[in-house]
Protein backbone atom coordinates (compact mmCIF):
# COMPACT_ATOMS: atom_id res chain seq x y z
CA UNK A 1 0.00 0.00 0.00
CA UNK A 2 2.74 2.42 0.88
CA UNK A 3 4.85 1.65 -2.16
CA UNK A 4 2.00 1.66 -4.64
CA UNK A 5 1.60 4.93 -6.55
CA UNK A 6 3.97 6.87 -4.31
CA UNK A 7 7.40 8.23 -4.91
CA UNK A 8 10.43 6.74 -3.26
CA UNK A 9 10.86 9.86 -1.15
CA UNK A 10 7.36 9.61 0.24
CA UNK A 11 7.80 5.90 0.89
CA UNK A 12 11.05 6.55 2.70
CA UNK A 13 9.34 9.21 4.79
CA UNK A 14 6.31 7.12 5.69
CA UNK A 15 7.90 3.70 6.12
CA UNK A 16 9.35 4.48 9.58
CA UNK A 17 5.92 5.42 10.91
CA UNK A 18 4.48 2.16 9.64
CA UNK A 19 7.42 0.35 11.23
CA UNK A 20 6.76 2.22 14.48
CA UNK A 21 3.17 1.08 14.34
CA UNK A 22 4.28 -2.53 14.00
CA UNK A 23 6.72 -2.15 16.90
CA UNK A 24 4.01 -0.63 19.07
CA UNK A 25 1.72 -3.52 18.19
CA UNK A 26 4.38 -5.99 19.22
CA UNK A 27 4.92 -4.04 22.47
CA UNK A 28 1.19 -4.19 23.13
CA UNK A 29 1.08 -7.93 22.61
CA UNK A 30 4.09 -8.26 24.91
CA UNK A 31 2.07 -6.66 27.72
CA UNK A 32 2.14 -2.88 27.35
CA UNK A 33 -1.59 -2.49 26.74
CA UNK A 34 -1.65 1.25 26.11
CA UNK A 35 0.68 0.76 23.16
CA UNK A 36 -2.18 -0.94 21.28
CA UNK A 37 -4.17 2.24 20.73
CA UNK A 38 -0.98 4.09 19.78
CA UNK A 39 -0.11 1.36 17.30
CA UNK A 40 -3.49 1.74 15.62
CA UNK A 41 -3.18 5.51 15.62
CA UNK A 42 0.27 5.47 14.06
CA UNK A 43 -0.78 2.86 11.52
CA UNK A 44 -3.84 4.84 10.52
CA UNK A 45 -1.83 8.06 10.30
CA UNK A 46 0.73 6.37 8.09
CA UNK A 47 -2.04 5.20 5.74
CA UNK A 48 -3.63 8.65 5.58
CA UNK A 49 -0.22 10.18 4.89
CA UNK A 50 0.40 7.74 2.07
CA UNK A 51 -2.99 8.37 0.54
CA UNK A 52 -2.57 12.14 0.68
CA UNK A 53 0.94 11.90 -0.76
CA UNK A 54 -0.26 9.71 -3.62
CA UNK A 55 -2.52 12.51 -4.81
CA UNK A 56 -5.25 10.19 -6.14
CA UNK A 57 -8.94 11.02 -5.78
CA UNK A 58 -10.33 8.28 -3.54
CA UNK A 59 -8.66 5.07 -2.39
CA UNK A 60 -11.28 2.33 -2.74
CA UNK A 61 -9.32 0.16 -0.30
CA UNK A 62 -10.05 2.56 2.57
CA UNK A 63 -12.98 0.57 4.06
CA UNK A 64 -10.93 -2.62 4.01
CA UNK A 65 -7.97 -0.87 5.63
CA UNK A 66 -10.28 0.56 8.27
CA UNK A 67 -11.77 -2.81 9.17
CA UNK A 68 -8.38 -4.52 9.22
CA UNK A 69 -7.05 -1.82 11.54
CA UNK A 70 -10.07 -2.24 13.77
CA UNK A 71 -9.71 -6.04 13.83
CA UNK A 72 -6.00 -5.72 14.63
CA UNK A 73 -6.92 -3.68 17.67
CA UNK A 74 -9.72 -5.93 18.83
CA UNK A 75 -7.86 -9.19 18.28
CA UNK A 76 -4.81 -7.74 20.01
CA UNK A 77 -6.95 -6.74 23.00
CA UNK A 78 -8.56 -10.19 23.05
CA UNK A 79 -5.20 -11.97 23.08
CA UNK A 80 -4.04 -9.73 25.92
CA UNK A 81 -7.16 -10.61 27.90
CA UNK A 82 -6.60 -14.34 27.35
CA UNK A 83 -3.06 -14.32 28.79
CA UNK A 84 -4.46 -14.73 32.35
CA UNK A 85 -5.37 -18.40 31.72
CA UNK A 86 -8.85 -18.27 33.19
CA UNK A 87 -10.84 -21.46 32.77
CA UNK A 88 -13.80 -20.19 30.74
CA UNK A 89 -16.95 -21.61 29.23
CA UNK A 90 -16.40 -22.33 25.53
CA UNK A 91 -19.48 -20.36 24.58
CA UNK A 92 -17.87 -17.13 25.79
CA UNK A 93 -15.19 -17.23 23.09
CA UNK A 94 -17.71 -18.07 20.38
CA UNK A 95 -20.00 -15.26 21.48
CA UNK A 96 -17.19 -12.73 21.46
CA UNK A 97 -16.09 -13.88 18.01
CA UNK A 98 -19.62 -13.53 16.64
CA UNK A 99 -20.13 -10.06 18.13
CA UNK A 100 -16.71 -8.94 16.90
CA UNK A 101 -17.40 -10.31 13.45
CA UNK A 102 -20.73 -8.50 13.34
CA UNK A 103 -19.15 -5.25 14.47
CA UNK A 104 -16.39 -5.56 11.86
CA UNK A 105 -18.96 -6.21 9.16
CA UNK A 106 -21.00 -3.22 10.28
CA UNK A 107 -17.84 -1.12 10.26
CA UNK A 108 -17.04 -2.28 6.75
CA UNK A 109 -20.50 -1.32 5.58
CA UNK A 110 -20.30 2.06 7.28
CA UNK A 111 -16.86 2.80 5.81
CA UNK A 112 -18.05 1.72 2.36
CA UNK A 113 -21.06 4.06 2.62
CA UNK A 114 -18.76 6.90 3.62
CA UNK A 115 -16.48 6.26 0.62
CA UNK A 116 -19.53 5.92 -1.61
CA UNK A 117 -20.95 9.23 -0.42
CA UNK A 118 -17.68 10.92 -1.42
CA UNK A 119 -19.16 10.94 -4.92
CA UNK A 120 -21.55 13.70 -3.79
CA UNK A 121 -21.07 16.93 -5.86
CA UNK A 122 -18.92 19.81 -4.52
CA UNK A 123 -21.93 22.09 -4.22
CA UNK A 124 -23.06 20.16 -1.19
CA UNK A 125 -19.59 20.26 0.38
CA UNK A 126 -20.52 22.78 3.07
CA UNK A 127 -23.35 20.57 4.33
CA UNK A 128 -21.07 17.57 4.50
CA UNK A 129 -18.36 19.60 6.14
CA UNK A 130 -20.78 20.67 8.84
CA UNK A 131 -22.05 17.08 9.22
CA UNK A 132 -18.48 15.90 9.54
CA UNK A 133 -17.75 18.45 12.23
CA UNK A 134 -20.86 17.43 14.14
CA UNK A 135 -19.84 13.75 13.81
CA UNK A 136 -16.35 14.53 15.12
CA UNK A 137 -17.73 16.35 18.14
CA UNK A 138 -20.26 13.54 18.71
CA UNK A 139 -17.51 10.92 18.59
CA UNK A 140 -15.43 12.75 21.16
CA UNK A 141 -18.46 13.43 23.31
CA UNK A 142 -19.59 9.80 23.16
CA UNK A 143 -16.16 8.59 24.21
CA UNK A 144 -16.07 10.99 27.12
CA UNK A 145 -19.62 10.12 28.23
CA UNK A 146 -18.82 6.45 28.00
CA UNK A 147 -15.69 6.83 30.10
CA UNK A 148 -17.61 8.74 32.77
CA UNK A 149 -20.71 6.48 32.83
Amino acid at each position, binding site marked *: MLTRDTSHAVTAALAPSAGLGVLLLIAALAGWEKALAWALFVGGAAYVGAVVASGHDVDSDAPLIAVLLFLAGELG*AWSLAERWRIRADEALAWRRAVVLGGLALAGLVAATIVVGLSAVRPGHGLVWTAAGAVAAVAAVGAGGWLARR
Partner: protein
Amino acid sequence: MTRFTSARVAGYTAIAAAGLIAGLALGRVEPVALAAPFALALVAAAVLGHEPRFAARLSLDRERVLEGDEVTATIELSADTAVDRLELLVLLPDELSAVDGPTRALRLRADDERTLELTLRCERWGAFAVGPLLVRAGDVLGFRSWEGRLGEAQMLRVYPSEESLLSLVPPLETQVSTGNQVARARGEGIEFADLREWRPGDRLRRVNWRASALRGELWVNEQHPERNTDVVLFLDTFAEARVQGRSTHDRVVRAAATLAHAYLQRKDRVGLVGFGGVLAWTVPESGLRQLYAIVDTLLTSDIVHSYALRGVDVLPPRTLPPKALVLALTPLLDERTAGALLDLRARGYDLIVVEVSPLDLLAPAPGSQAELVHRLWQLSREALRWRYEQVGVPVVTWREGMPLAAALEEVKALRRLARPA
Protein backbone atom coordinates in the same frame (compact mmCIF):
# COMPACT_ATOMS: atom_id res chain seq x y z
CA MET B 1 -18.23 -2.54 42.75
CA THR B 2 -15.60 -0.43 41.01
CA ARG B 3 -16.04 0.40 37.35
CA PHE B 4 -13.13 0.18 34.93
CA THR B 5 -13.05 1.33 31.32
CA SER B 6 -10.66 -0.29 28.87
CA ALA B 7 -7.86 1.86 27.52
CA ARG B 8 -9.21 0.99 24.08
CA VAL B 9 -12.18 3.32 24.60
CA ALA B 10 -9.92 6.35 24.90
CA GLY B 11 -7.83 5.11 22.01
CA TYR B 12 -10.82 4.51 19.75
CA THR B 13 -12.23 7.89 20.70
CA ALA B 14 -8.96 9.53 19.69
CA ILE B 15 -8.82 7.62 16.42
CA ALA B 16 -12.44 8.37 15.53
CA ALA B 17 -12.11 12.07 16.37
CA ALA B 18 -8.75 12.38 14.61
CA GLY B 19 -10.11 10.63 11.54
CA LEU B 20 -13.12 12.90 11.31
CA ILE B 21 -11.11 16.07 11.89
CA ALA B 22 -8.41 14.96 9.43
CA GLY B 23 -11.11 14.30 6.85
CA LEU B 24 -12.42 17.82 7.31
CA ALA B 25 -8.98 19.42 7.32
CA LEU B 26 -7.53 17.50 4.38
CA GLY B 27 -10.73 17.32 2.39
CA ARG B 28 -10.31 13.56 2.00
CA VAL B 29 -12.78 10.79 2.69
CA GLU B 30 -10.23 8.10 3.63
CA PRO B 31 -9.66 9.34 7.22
CA VAL B 32 -13.43 9.39 7.75
CA ALA B 33 -13.67 5.82 6.45
CA LEU B 34 -10.90 4.82 8.88
CA ALA B 35 -12.83 6.40 11.74
CA ALA B 36 -16.12 4.67 10.96
CA PRO B 37 -15.50 1.23 12.54
CA PHE B 38 -14.01 2.82 15.64
CA ALA B 39 -16.96 5.16 16.05
CA LEU B 40 -19.30 2.18 15.69
CA ALA B 41 -17.29 0.36 18.35
CA LEU B 42 -17.86 3.27 20.74
CA VAL B 43 -21.58 3.08 20.10
CA ALA B 44 -21.47 -0.68 20.72
CA ALA B 45 -19.60 -0.11 23.99
CA ALA B 46 -22.27 2.32 25.14
CA VAL B 47 -25.05 -0.10 24.25
CA LEU B 48 -23.46 -3.31 25.63
CA GLY B 49 -22.11 -1.98 28.90
CA HIS B 50 -24.39 -1.76 31.93
CA GLU B 51 -23.66 -2.36 35.61
CA PRO B 52 -24.64 -5.94 36.41
CA ARG B 53 -26.57 -7.02 39.48
CA PHE B 54 -25.75 -10.46 40.81
CA ALA B 55 -24.93 -12.29 44.04
CA ALA B 56 -22.36 -14.95 44.90
CA ARG B 57 -21.89 -17.20 47.90
CA LEU B 58 -18.88 -19.36 48.76
CA SER B 59 -19.07 -22.47 50.93
CA LEU B 60 -16.89 -25.51 51.76
CA ASP B 61 -18.15 -29.06 52.12
CA ARG B 62 -15.95 -29.62 55.19
CA GLU B 63 -14.37 -27.41 57.84
CA ARG B 64 -11.75 -29.91 59.08
CA VAL B 65 -9.58 -32.07 56.89
CA LEU B 66 -6.25 -33.86 57.07
CA GLU B 67 -3.07 -32.85 55.29
CA GLY B 68 -3.17 -34.09 51.71
CA ASP B 69 -6.97 -34.30 51.58
CA GLU B 70 -9.14 -32.54 49.03
CA VAL B 71 -12.04 -30.27 49.86
CA THR B 72 -14.77 -28.98 47.54
CA ALA B 73 -15.50 -25.27 47.40
CA THR B 74 -18.96 -24.46 46.04
CA ILE B 75 -19.80 -21.10 44.49
CA GLU B 76 -23.50 -20.30 44.13
CA LEU B 77 -24.33 -17.54 41.68
CA SER B 78 -27.60 -15.77 41.04
CA ALA B 79 -28.09 -12.92 38.57
CA ASP B 80 -30.79 -10.25 38.53
CA THR B 81 -29.50 -8.85 35.21
CA ALA B 82 -27.58 -10.52 32.41
CA VAL B 83 -23.80 -10.64 32.75
CA ASP B 84 -22.02 -11.15 29.43
CA ARG B 85 -18.75 -12.24 31.03
CA LEU B 86 -18.29 -12.98 34.73
CA GLU B 87 -14.81 -13.87 35.95
CA LEU B 88 -14.35 -15.34 39.42
CA LEU B 89 -11.22 -15.82 41.50
CA VAL B 90 -11.21 -17.63 44.85
CA LEU B 91 -8.54 -16.17 47.10
CA LEU B 92 -6.45 -19.05 48.44
CA PRO B 93 -3.47 -19.11 50.81
CA ASP B 94 -0.20 -20.54 49.49
CA GLU B 95 -0.73 -23.80 51.38
CA LEU B 96 -3.88 -24.63 49.39
CA SER B 97 -4.06 -25.20 45.65
CA ALA B 98 -7.01 -25.56 43.28
CA VAL B 99 -6.82 -28.67 41.12
CA ASP B 100 -8.14 -26.95 37.96
CA GLY B 101 -7.06 -23.44 38.90
CA PRO B 102 -8.80 -20.93 41.19
CA THR B 103 -10.45 -18.95 38.36
CA ARG B 104 -13.57 -19.41 36.29
CA ALA B 105 -15.30 -17.36 33.57
CA LEU B 106 -18.89 -17.79 32.49
CA ARG B 107 -21.96 -16.00 31.22
CA LEU B 108 -25.13 -15.44 33.24
CA ARG B 109 -28.51 -14.62 31.77
CA ALA B 110 -31.03 -12.52 33.65
CA ASP B 111 -32.55 -14.45 36.61
CA ASP B 112 -30.04 -17.24 36.03
CA GLU B 113 -28.68 -19.37 38.88
CA ARG B 114 -25.54 -21.46 38.60
CA THR B 115 -23.38 -23.51 40.92
CA LEU B 116 -19.66 -24.04 40.39
CA GLU B 117 -17.41 -26.48 42.23
CA LEU B 118 -13.68 -26.17 42.77
CA THR B 119 -11.53 -28.95 44.21
CA LEU B 120 -8.93 -27.65 46.65
CA ARG B 121 -5.94 -29.71 47.70
CA CYS B 122 -4.56 -29.11 51.20
CA GLU B 123 -0.80 -29.24 50.84
CA ARG B 124 0.12 -28.32 54.42
CA TRP B 125 -1.45 -28.19 57.89
CA GLY B 126 -2.76 -24.97 59.33
CA ALA B 127 -5.84 -22.81 59.86
CA PHE B 128 -6.74 -20.97 56.67
CA ALA B 129 -9.29 -18.55 55.34
CA VAL B 130 -10.61 -19.58 51.92
CA GLY B 131 -12.05 -16.68 49.96
CA PRO B 132 -13.65 -14.25 49.57
CA LEU B 133 -14.44 -14.17 45.87
CA LEU B 134 -12.93 -11.58 43.58
CA VAL B 135 -15.32 -10.94 40.71
CA ARG B 136 -15.05 -9.04 37.46
CA ALA B 137 -18.18 -8.57 35.31
CA GLY B 138 -17.93 -7.02 31.89
CA ASP B 139 -19.48 -6.72 28.46
CA VAL B 140 -18.79 -9.22 25.76
CA LEU B 141 -15.99 -7.20 24.11
CA GLY B 142 -14.34 -6.09 27.34
CA PHE B 143 -14.86 -2.35 26.89
CA ARG B 144 -16.11 -1.88 30.43
CA SER B 145 -15.93 -4.02 33.57
CA TRP B 146 -16.96 -3.91 37.19
CA GLU B 147 -14.78 -5.47 39.88
CA GLY B 148 -15.41 -6.22 43.51
CA ARG B 149 -15.35 -8.73 46.36
CA LEU B 150 -18.28 -10.95 47.16
CA GLY B 151 -19.00 -13.61 49.74
CA GLU B 152 -17.41 -14.29 53.09
CA ALA B 153 -14.10 -16.05 53.73
CA GLN B 154 -14.61 -19.60 54.97
CA MET B 155 -12.42 -21.07 57.71
CA LEU B 156 -10.70 -24.35 56.97
CA ARG B 157 -8.63 -26.32 59.45
CA VAL B 158 -6.13 -28.72 57.93
CA TYR B 159 -4.87 -31.11 60.55
CA PRO B 160 -1.30 -32.43 60.35
CA SER B 161 -0.80 -35.92 59.05
CA GLU B 162 0.14 -38.47 61.68
CA GLU B 163 2.52 -41.40 61.69
CA SER B 164 1.58 -44.76 63.07
CA LEU B 165 3.24 -45.71 66.35
CA LEU B 166 3.29 -49.26 67.63
CA SER B 167 4.50 -48.31 71.10
CA LEU B 168 5.09 -45.22 73.16
CA VAL B 169 7.70 -44.11 75.61
CA PRO B 170 6.53 -45.14 79.08
CA PRO B 171 6.95 -42.57 81.82
CA LEU B 172 9.03 -43.23 84.91
CA GLU B 173 6.12 -42.47 87.22
CA THR B 174 2.40 -42.79 86.79
CA GLN B 175 -0.53 -40.93 88.25
CA VAL B 176 -3.17 -42.27 90.60
CA SER B 177 -6.03 -42.59 88.11
CA THR B 178 -6.73 -45.76 86.19
CA GLY B 179 -5.27 -45.97 82.74
CA ASN B 180 -3.44 -48.27 80.34
CA GLN B 181 0.13 -47.79 81.57
CA VAL B 182 1.59 -50.54 83.76
CA ALA B 183 2.87 -48.79 86.87
CA ARG B 184 6.04 -49.69 88.75
CA ALA B 185 4.12 -49.73 92.00
CA ARG B 186 2.32 -52.83 93.21
CA GLY B 187 -1.34 -53.28 93.76
CA GLU B 188 -4.47 -54.52 91.97
CA GLY B 189 -3.85 -55.18 88.31
CA ILE B 190 -3.25 -57.69 85.54
CA GLU B 191 0.52 -57.73 85.05
CA PHE B 192 2.30 -60.08 87.47
CA ALA B 193 4.81 -58.29 89.72
CA ASP B 194 5.96 -60.53 92.57
CA LEU B 195 5.05 -63.03 95.27
CA ARG B 196 4.77 -62.26 98.97
CA GLU B 197 3.47 -63.88 102.05
CA TRP B 198 -0.22 -63.76 102.77
CA ARG B 199 -1.36 -60.97 105.08
CA PRO B 200 -4.75 -60.53 106.72
CA GLY B 201 -7.05 -58.76 104.30
CA ASP B 202 -5.67 -60.32 101.16
CA ARG B 203 -8.31 -61.75 98.81
CA LEU B 204 -8.53 -65.48 98.36
CA ARG B 205 -8.31 -65.29 94.59
CA ARG B 206 -4.85 -63.72 94.85
CA VAL B 207 -3.43 -66.80 96.55
CA ASN B 208 -0.79 -68.53 94.43
CA TRP B 209 -1.67 -72.15 95.23
CA ARG B 210 1.41 -73.67 93.61
CA ALA B 211 3.82 -71.46 95.57
CA SER B 212 1.74 -72.01 98.71
CA ALA B 213 1.96 -75.81 98.25
CA LEU B 214 5.74 -75.63 97.77
CA ARG B 215 6.28 -73.52 100.86
CA GLY B 216 3.59 -74.98 103.06
CA GLU B 217 2.09 -71.57 103.80
CA LEU B 218 -0.03 -69.09 101.90
CA TRP B 219 1.62 -66.90 99.35
CA VAL B 220 -0.18 -64.36 97.19
CA ASN B 221 0.47 -62.75 93.80
CA GLU B 222 1.19 -59.10 93.53
CA GLN B 223 0.42 -57.18 90.32
CA HIS B 224 1.37 -53.95 88.76
CA PRO B 225 -1.67 -51.71 88.57
CA GLU B 226 -2.63 -49.91 85.36
CA ARG B 227 -2.45 -46.22 85.81
CA ASN B 228 -2.62 -43.28 83.55
CA THR B 229 0.14 -40.78 83.00
CA ASP B 230 0.46 -37.08 82.43
CA VAL B 231 2.35 -36.21 79.29
CA VAL B 232 3.34 -32.70 78.34
CA LEU B 233 4.48 -32.06 74.78
CA PHE B 234 6.98 -29.21 74.90
CA LEU B 235 7.38 -27.51 71.51
CA ASP B 236 10.29 -25.20 70.80
CA THR B 237 8.85 -22.35 68.69
CA PHE B 238 11.73 -19.90 69.04
CA ALA B 239 13.41 -20.85 65.79
CA GLU B 240 13.21 -23.23 62.87
CA ALA B 241 15.24 -24.23 59.85
CA ARG B 242 13.26 -23.87 56.62
CA VAL B 243 14.35 -24.59 53.06
CA GLN B 244 12.01 -24.61 50.06
CA GLY B 245 8.86 -25.67 51.89
CA ARG B 246 10.60 -28.16 54.21
CA SER B 247 11.02 -27.06 57.78
CA THR B 248 11.78 -28.43 61.22
CA HIS B 249 8.63 -26.77 62.61
CA ASP B 250 6.40 -28.81 60.26
CA ARG B 251 7.98 -32.02 61.54
CA VAL B 252 7.63 -30.83 65.15
CA VAL B 253 3.90 -30.20 64.66
CA ARG B 254 3.30 -33.53 62.93
CA ALA B 255 5.20 -35.37 65.69
CA ALA B 256 3.24 -33.52 68.38
CA ALA B 257 -0.08 -34.42 66.74
CA THR B 258 0.99 -38.08 66.44
CA LEU B 259 2.12 -38.30 70.05
CA ALA B 260 -0.94 -36.48 71.41
CA HIS B 261 -3.27 -38.81 69.53
CA ALA B 262 -1.39 -41.93 70.65
CA TYR B 263 -1.19 -40.98 74.35
CA LEU B 264 -4.81 -39.83 74.49
CA GLN B 265 -5.91 -43.13 73.02
CA ARG B 266 -4.30 -44.78 76.04
CA LYS B 267 -6.48 -42.64 78.30
CA ASP B 268 -3.51 -40.59 79.42
CA ARG B 269 -3.75 -36.87 80.07
CA VAL B 270 -1.87 -34.83 77.50
CA GLY B 271 -0.98 -31.18 77.60
CA LEU B 272 0.89 -28.89 75.26
CA VAL B 273 3.34 -26.05 75.74
CA GLY B 274 4.47 -23.92 72.81
CA PHE B 275 7.61 -22.22 74.12
CA GLY B 276 8.85 -19.42 71.92
CA GLY B 277 8.22 -15.88 70.81
CA VAL B 278 4.55 -16.44 71.57
CA LEU B 279 3.69 -18.67 74.50
CA ALA B 280 0.83 -21.10 74.07
CA TRP B 281 -0.32 -23.90 76.33
CA THR B 282 -3.05 -26.43 76.86
CA VAL B 283 -3.57 -27.82 80.36
CA PRO B 284 -3.33 -31.64 80.46
CA GLU B 285 -6.68 -33.31 80.00
CA SER B 286 -7.87 -36.54 78.47
CA GLY B 287 -10.45 -37.45 75.88
CA LEU B 288 -11.27 -36.63 72.29
CA ARG B 289 -12.05 -33.00 73.04
CA GLN B 290 -8.51 -32.57 74.36
CA LEU B 291 -7.14 -33.97 71.09
CA TYR B 292 -9.05 -31.33 69.13
CA ALA B 293 -7.92 -28.62 71.57
CA ILE B 294 -4.28 -29.65 71.19
CA VAL B 295 -4.44 -29.89 67.41
CA ASP B 296 -6.23 -26.54 67.16
CA THR B 297 -3.43 -25.01 69.25
CA LEU B 298 -0.87 -26.67 66.97
CA LEU B 299 -2.54 -25.23 63.88
CA THR B 300 -2.02 -21.70 65.11
CA SER B 301 1.51 -22.30 66.36
CA ASP B 302 4.13 -20.50 64.36
CA ILE B 303 7.71 -19.40 64.67
CA VAL B 304 7.72 -15.83 65.93
CA HIS B 305 11.11 -14.19 66.15
CA SER B 306 11.68 -12.69 69.59
CA TYR B 307 14.54 -11.48 71.76
CA ALA B 308 12.53 -11.95 74.98
CA LEU B 309 14.24 -13.92 77.73
CA ARG B 310 11.83 -16.55 78.95
CA GLY B 311 11.90 -19.26 81.56
CA VAL B 312 9.45 -21.97 82.46
CA ASP B 313 8.34 -19.96 85.50
CA VAL B 314 6.15 -17.87 83.18
CA LEU B 315 3.99 -20.92 82.52
CA PRO B 316 0.92 -21.52 84.70
CA PRO B 317 1.59 -24.30 87.26
CA ARG B 318 -1.26 -26.47 85.96
CA THR B 319 0.43 -26.83 82.56
CA LEU B 320 3.29 -28.84 84.12
CA PRO B 321 1.79 -31.24 86.69
CA PRO B 322 4.17 -33.10 89.01
CA LYS B 323 5.52 -36.47 87.82
CA ALA B 324 4.55 -35.61 84.24
CA LEU B 325 6.55 -36.99 81.34
CA VAL B 326 7.81 -34.00 79.34
CA LEU B 327 8.55 -34.79 75.71
CA ALA B 328 10.47 -31.87 74.21
CA LEU B 329 10.47 -31.52 70.43
CA THR B 330 13.16 -29.03 69.49
CA PRO B 331 15.67 -28.36 66.72
CA LEU B 332 18.17 -27.19 69.40
CA LEU B 333 18.71 -23.87 67.66
CA ASP B 334 17.94 -21.50 70.54
CA GLU B 335 19.75 -21.27 73.86
CA ARG B 336 16.62 -20.16 75.68
CA THR B 337 14.93 -23.49 75.07
CA ALA B 338 18.02 -25.32 76.31
CA GLY B 339 17.95 -23.26 79.50
CA ALA B 340 14.24 -23.92 80.03
CA LEU B 341 14.61 -27.68 79.54
CA LEU B 342 17.55 -27.92 81.92
CA ASP B 343 15.46 -25.96 84.41
CA LEU B 344 12.66 -28.50 84.03
CA ARG B 345 15.10 -31.32 84.67
CA ALA B 346 16.39 -29.56 87.77
CA ARG B 347 12.80 -29.37 89.04
CA GLY B 348 12.61 -33.14 88.82
CA TYR B 349 10.52 -33.63 85.69
CA ASP B 350 10.89 -36.78 83.64
CA LEU B 351 12.32 -35.16 80.53
CA ILE B 352 13.05 -36.59 77.09
CA VAL B 353 14.47 -34.47 74.30
CA VAL B 354 13.72 -35.38 70.68
CA GLU B 355 16.06 -33.33 68.53
CA VAL B 356 14.37 -32.53 65.21
CA SER B 357 17.59 -32.38 63.28
CA PRO B 358 18.06 -29.35 61.01
CA LEU B 359 21.30 -30.75 59.53
CA ASP B 360 19.48 -32.14 56.48
CA LEU B 361 18.20 -28.66 55.67
CA LEU B 362 21.37 -26.71 56.36
CA ALA B 363 24.12 -28.08 54.18
CA PRO B 364 27.42 -26.21 54.43
CA ALA B 365 28.19 -23.68 51.73
CA PRO B 366 31.19 -24.57 49.53
CA GLY B 367 34.51 -23.33 50.77
CA SER B 368 36.87 -24.34 53.56
CA GLN B 369 35.82 -21.48 55.85
CA ALA B 370 32.11 -22.29 55.53
CA GLU B 371 32.78 -25.96 56.16
CA LEU B 372 34.83 -25.09 59.22
CA VAL B 373 31.99 -22.95 60.56
CA HIS B 374 29.56 -25.80 59.89
CA ARG B 375 31.75 -28.26 61.81
CA LEU B 376 32.05 -25.84 64.72
CA TRP B 377 28.30 -25.48 64.77
CA GLN B 378 27.86 -29.26 64.82
CA LEU B 379 30.36 -29.48 67.70
CA SER B 380 28.40 -26.90 69.68
CA ARG B 381 25.27 -29.02 69.19
CA GLU B 382 27.18 -32.07 70.41
CA ALA B 383 28.21 -30.10 73.49
CA LEU B 384 24.59 -29.17 74.16
CA ARG B 385 23.54 -32.82 73.89
CA TRP B 386 26.31 -33.72 76.32
CA ARG B 387 24.94 -31.16 78.83
CA TYR B 388 21.56 -32.87 78.70
CA GLU B 389 23.04 -36.33 79.06
CA GLN B 390 25.12 -35.23 82.04
CA VAL B 391 21.93 -34.46 83.98
CA GLY B 392 20.28 -37.70 82.88
CA VAL B 393 18.12 -36.43 80.03
CA PRO B 394 18.04 -38.80 77.06
CA VAL B 395 18.48 -36.99 73.75
CA VAL B 396 17.66 -38.70 70.45
CA THR B 397 18.18 -37.25 67.00
CA TRP B 398 15.26 -37.55 64.61
CA ARG B 399 16.46 -37.04 61.07
CA GLU B 400 14.33 -36.25 58.04
CA GLY B 401 13.02 -39.43 56.43
CA MET B 402 13.37 -41.44 59.63
CA PRO B 403 10.09 -42.66 61.16
CA LEU B 404 9.19 -41.17 64.52
CA ALA B 405 8.73 -44.68 65.87
CA ALA B 406 12.45 -45.34 65.35
CA ALA B 407 13.38 -42.27 67.40
CA LEU B 408 11.02 -43.37 70.20
CA GLU B 409 12.51 -46.87 70.21
CA GLU B 410 15.92 -45.28 70.67
CA VAL B 411 14.55 -43.39 73.68
CA LYS B 412 13.21 -46.60 75.20
CA ALA B 413 16.57 -48.32 74.67
CA LEU B 414 18.42 -45.41 76.35
CA ARG B 415 16.06 -45.52 79.33
CA ARG B 416 16.51 -49.27 79.69
CA LEU B 417 20.26 -48.80 79.82
CA ALA B 418 20.10 -45.98 82.33
CA ARG B 419 17.10 -47.00 84.40
CA PRO B 420 16.93 -44.95 87.62
CA ALA B 421 16.76 -46.80 90.94
